[in-house]
């Protein structure tokens, strides 16, 4: 498998872009055609991914399982930025997730967006998003990653604010874009810092300081020590560790980690397929993927890894607690996504990339499934409030059963996808290289909370009596078929990572991808006791949830009264939104107003108009001399001639003396 297959990789990337262009510009008004173009763009991506994956899996002994293909994008002086595609195991796996989850969601959108005014625009934006996401996946260097990073932000902005007539949607899009930008600020700073620190080393000569492969090779050869020695500590950290943390800022923004997680729940303002595709399966996972890609940057620096793990853990726990009290079905899923993303990031920080990647993969399928189910429910009830649902089990059997499958996977019922991936994370916390007991506790408690809120949501939505208006009905086949299509991997994909099953395959061994992400150092076994403990926590949470909301053995309202301050804290999301609002409305706007005040009053009214006023005033003063009276003029002329004569005489006198 070599660069001769590059056209396929380029096709994965550019088929969706072409589809976006065609759907957005040429056939925007021909609804069916626009959708068809978009879906086929995505399908081409999926097929090419599958082909490359097959070639990679089928690569013989000693044959490379991936390739890189680059072209020079910007050249200026000694600086070269490249643009390329990498098809290694990591990127192909991720591309499979994106295209594999993406294709059914595209199909589902045909039904979901049916009748919407901006049908063509929607598919154009969706395709643009797919292009951006695949760009991150296939990127060969840091700058290219940043390029697509921003593009993902752009398409997210466009899709969240898709219904631009709705103020809340536009605000949510803006918020997503801006919060991501804050993260991107760190990301780009990190890239620049890393680039020039590395490029300034003589031993780095001949390599490209942005390139993943070059950097990884340099680090693997111990270059990071040289890097740390070459430059002084900044902010108490060695420069490469600081660069790694700055790069991690990007992931914090995109993967919605604390404290930049606030945009994700608001992003549910977008159409549901968007929530499923971007805010569950792909875009938010980009951060995790990126950390896996540049894991070599973190590996040598335990302090960086700890920071990553704790931010992940904190996000996982916090989001799970907020999810307990949400009443909007999409918000529950959104916070659940946040919590799971926290898990992934924690996994990366604790053990390494693979556990995080594994959970990312499984989560993509079951969370996309859950979102599409919720979309189906919303489609039927015309409401997103779970308080206005109930008893949908009978009206919508397909949706119900697929939802149950997704829930089972999320709660980590043994045997489902989520079970294996979550187990691996817990194992990392318990036995891994950077094992940490507090984080293990966080992980276990979060597992319990997850089961609790999912059971609460399921019970309120599908069981009991219907509390809404109208008659809910099952969605059309174009929407339910993708549900079943996703339900299969949601159940089964976890087995891929089951150590006893596929671990022997050479594809899963050695260094995973061009940047040398290591897979399972030493025998990584299935930990039965840990799995049991984890399942016990989940079961406890689930049973409790069922007791309160399903069987109604415990009075929910009474407990709410009893724990009112806690409930308020959670339903107000720890007051973080208020804090950011204050930051934006008061601090940022205040600084802006101050600058404007300075501009208008000091610079313009003060300096500029002051100067002009001074000129005018001097003109006015001099005008007084212009009396119009000949006598005055003569007097001035006289005074002048007196001065001239005096000067002549004095200089003559001085000349005479000296």
């Amino acid at each position, binding site marked *: 498998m070599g660069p001769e297959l590059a056209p396929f990789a380029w096709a994965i990337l550019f088929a969706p872009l072409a589809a976006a262009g065609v759907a957005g510009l040429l056939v925007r008004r021909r609804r069916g055609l626009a959708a068809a173009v978009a879906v086929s763009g995505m399908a081409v991506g999926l097929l090419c991914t599958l082909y490359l994956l097959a070639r990679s899996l089928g690569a013989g002994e000693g044959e490379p399982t991936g390739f890189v293909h680059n072209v020079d994008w910007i050249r200026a002086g000694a600086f070269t930025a490249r643009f390329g595609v990498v098809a290694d195991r990591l990127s192909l796996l991720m591309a499979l997730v994106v295209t594999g989850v993406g294709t059914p969601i595209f199909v589902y959108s045909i039904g979901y967006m049916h009748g919407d005014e901006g049908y063509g625009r929607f598919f154009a934006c969706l395709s643009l998003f797919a292009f951006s996401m695949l760009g991150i996946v296939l990127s060969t260097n840091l700058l290219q990653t940043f390029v697509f990073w921003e593009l993902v932000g752009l398409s997210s902005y466009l899709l969240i604010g898709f219904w631009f007539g709705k103020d809340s949607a536009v605000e949510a899009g803006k918020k997503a874009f801006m919060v991501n930008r804050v993260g991107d600020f760190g990301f780009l700073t990190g890239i620049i810092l890393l680039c020039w620190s590395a490029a300034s080393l003589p031993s780095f000569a001949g390599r490209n300081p942005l390139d993943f492969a070059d950097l990884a090779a340099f680090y693997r050869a111990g270059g990071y020590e040289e890097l740390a020695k070459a430059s002084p500590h900044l902010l108490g950290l060695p420069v490469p560790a600081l660069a790694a943390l700055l790069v991690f800022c990007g992931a914090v923004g995109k993967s919605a980690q604390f404290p930049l997680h606030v945009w994700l729940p608001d992003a549910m303002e977008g159409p549901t397929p968007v929530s499923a595709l971007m805010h569950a399966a792909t875009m938010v996972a980009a951060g995790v993927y990126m950390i896996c890609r540049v894991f070599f940057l973190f590996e040598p620096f335990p302090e960086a890894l700890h920071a990553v793990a704790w931010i992940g853990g904190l996000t996982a726990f916090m989001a799970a607690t907020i999810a307990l009290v949400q009443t909007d079905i999409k918000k529950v899923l959104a916070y659940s996504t946040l919590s799971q993303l926290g898990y992934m990031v924690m996994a990366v920080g604790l053990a390494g990339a693979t556990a995080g990647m594994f959970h990312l993969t499984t989560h993509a399928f079951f969370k996309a499934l859950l979102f599409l189910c919720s979309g189906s429910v919303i489609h039927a009830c015309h409401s997103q409030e779970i308080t206005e649902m109930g008893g949908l089990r009978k009206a919508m059997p397909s949706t119900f059963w697929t939802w149950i499958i997704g829930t089972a996977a999320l709660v980590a019922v043994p045997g489902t996808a989520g079970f294996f991936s979550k187990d691996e994370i817990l194992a990392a916390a318990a036995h891994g290289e950077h094992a940490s007991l507090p984080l293990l506790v966080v992980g276990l408690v979060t597992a319990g909370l997850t089961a609790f809120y999912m059971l609460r949501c399921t019970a309120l939505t599908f069981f009991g009596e219907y509390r809404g208006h109208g008659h809910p009905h099952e969605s059309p086949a174009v929407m339910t078929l993708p549900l079943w299509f996703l339900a299969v991997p949601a159940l089964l994909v976890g087995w891929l990572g089951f150590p006893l099953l596929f671990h022997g395959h050479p594809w899963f061994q050695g260094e995973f991808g061009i940047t040398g992400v290591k897979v399972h150092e030493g025998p990584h076994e299935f930990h039965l006791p840990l799995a049991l403990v984890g399942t016990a926590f989940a079961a406890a949470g689930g049973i409790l949830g069922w007791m309160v909301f399903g069987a109604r053995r415990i009075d929910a309202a009474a407990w709410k009264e009893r724990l009112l301050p806690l409930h308020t804290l959670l339903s107000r999301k720890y007051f973080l939104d208020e804090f950011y609002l204050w930051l934006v409305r008061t601090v940022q706007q205040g600084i802006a107003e101050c600058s404007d005040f300075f501009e208008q009053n000091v610079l313009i009214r003060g300096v500029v108009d002051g100067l002009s006023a001074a000129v005018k005033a001097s003109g006015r003063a001099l005008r007084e001399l212009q009396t119009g009276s000949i006598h005055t003029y003569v*007097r001035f002329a*006289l*005074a002048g*001639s*007196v001065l001239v*004569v*005096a000067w*002549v*005489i004095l200089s*003559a*006198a001085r000349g*005479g003396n000296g």
Partner: protein
Amino acid sequence: MEGLGFYGFGALTLLGALLMVTSRNPLHGVLWLVVSFLGLSGLFGGLGAHFLAAIQILVYAGAILVLFLFVIMLLNLRPDDVERMPTFSLRGGVGGFLVGVVGFCAVVGSVVMGTGAFAKPVAGLPPLEAGAADVAIPLFSTALLPFEVVSLLLLAAIVGSVALTKRRLP
């Protein structure tokens, strides 16, 4: 003879000037100025500038001042009864002081610079007699360009005067 000419004509010139400046009636003023210019012409003659002496009478006293007279009579100006020489005022004091300073400076200047030929009696200088022909030579050779320029200036003055005094039709 030299001394008689200077002091006589000098006194005449100065007297005419003073009376012109102090005359209330502009008509009288012009006549006194004529007197002054006649004296000046005598002084020119005393300095050997015979051509200029003639010009001074012909052009200045004859033509220009007649023009003044003509204008005064045309406008029918009466003796100005509001106007009077200021006896003393701040402005007059300052002005007089400045004039005094100028005069003082002029005198001091002439003394300081008045060495060599300036201090010698005029009678002792080599004789210089400048008739019309003598003045014409430099006028039409070295000073030809200014001469032409002055003629242009006169032309412009004629055109300007006509333009300024032309009555506009209502």
